[in-house]
């Protein structure tokens, strides 16, 4: 399993992702600079979190123009697996590889805290096999994490099983209007989505930061689980 981790100027979660795939799951994980167009026969491409291009204009807007993104688009079009975490999710939305966009958090604050996210019934390379309704506890760290799509797009996504994770309480209860649970105000409490084919997944939370007990995995399901699914471990 070869995992390409794309690095843009301002990316800062690349080493966490390389550690999870290369260190913990023993995949062949390697960085790819955003000016390169060769994905080096990757089986999975990850756009990690950070602040690509300093979040200029809109989060993820300038990163979508980087040369590597044409290769990522071609790769995804051929069914290749693409995962975007946090800023990576924002880049996938801006690129049109995923529907919708991430707006500023409803409470106008940068949110850096642990959240619970509930696995939704969805057919994709990141959570298929994890029982739906399972709750994963992991950190978020974002100012623009408020998922938005117009009502028609949202209803299509719900119908197609494109919602991968929702913000919930520790027991798995979802309440979109309760901003103590749906902390950034996302439409339908959406924390992560996939495309129709299930080969492109994006999420705002950082399960890679809760993949080991050393860094705060505190019971329930570990953040490592979806990464295990992704590499077939």
């Amino acid at each position, binding site marked *: 399993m070869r995992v390409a981790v794309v690095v843009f100027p301002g990316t800062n979660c690349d080493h966490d992702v390389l550690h999870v795939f290369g260190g913990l799951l023993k995949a062949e994980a390697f960085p790819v600079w955003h000016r390169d167009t060769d994905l080096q026969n990757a089986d999975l491409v990850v756009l990690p979190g950070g602040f690509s291009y300093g979040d200029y204009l809109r989060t993820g*807007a300038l990163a979508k123009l980087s040369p590597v993104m044409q290769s990522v688009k071609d790769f995804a079009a051929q069914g290749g697996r693409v995962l975007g975490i946090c800023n990576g999710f924002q880049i996938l939305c*801006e690129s049109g590889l995923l529907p919708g966009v991430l*707006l500023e*958090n409803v409470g106008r604050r940068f949110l850096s805290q642990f959240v619970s996210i509930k696995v939704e019934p969805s057919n994709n390379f990141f959570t298929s096999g994890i029982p739906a309704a399972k709750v994963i506890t992991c950190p978020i760290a974002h100012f623009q994490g408020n998922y*938005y799509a117009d009502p028609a797009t949202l209803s299509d996504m719900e119908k197609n099983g494109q919602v991968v994770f929702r913000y919930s309480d520790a027991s798995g209860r979802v309440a979109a209007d309760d901003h103590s649970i749906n902390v950034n105000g996302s439409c339908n409490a959406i924390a992560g989505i996939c495309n129709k084919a299930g080969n492109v997944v994006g999420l705002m939370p950082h399960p890679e930061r809760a993949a080991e007990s050393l860094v705060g995995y505190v019971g329930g399901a570990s953040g490592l689980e979806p990464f295990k699914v992704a590499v077939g471990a």
Partner: protein
Amino acid sequence: MRYQVLVRLKTGVLDVQGKAIETGLKDKKFEAFRNIRVGRVIELEVEGLDKEKAKAQVDEVCKLLLANPVIEQYEIREVA
């Protein structure tokens, strides 16, 4: 040729900056202001293209980068 692109959030899309401004003004007893919406002005100078082509390319880059059609609308103005 010089152009101004005005980018605005579409009606109904939450504008947290506008909300923050409204709250700040209220704190200073300016209580009459409602629905404050924050947009962005982008100025571009175009060289070496005729007017028709210039306008077409400004429109193209609006769609490509300057505005996100999911949440924003834009307006192009030619300025002297």
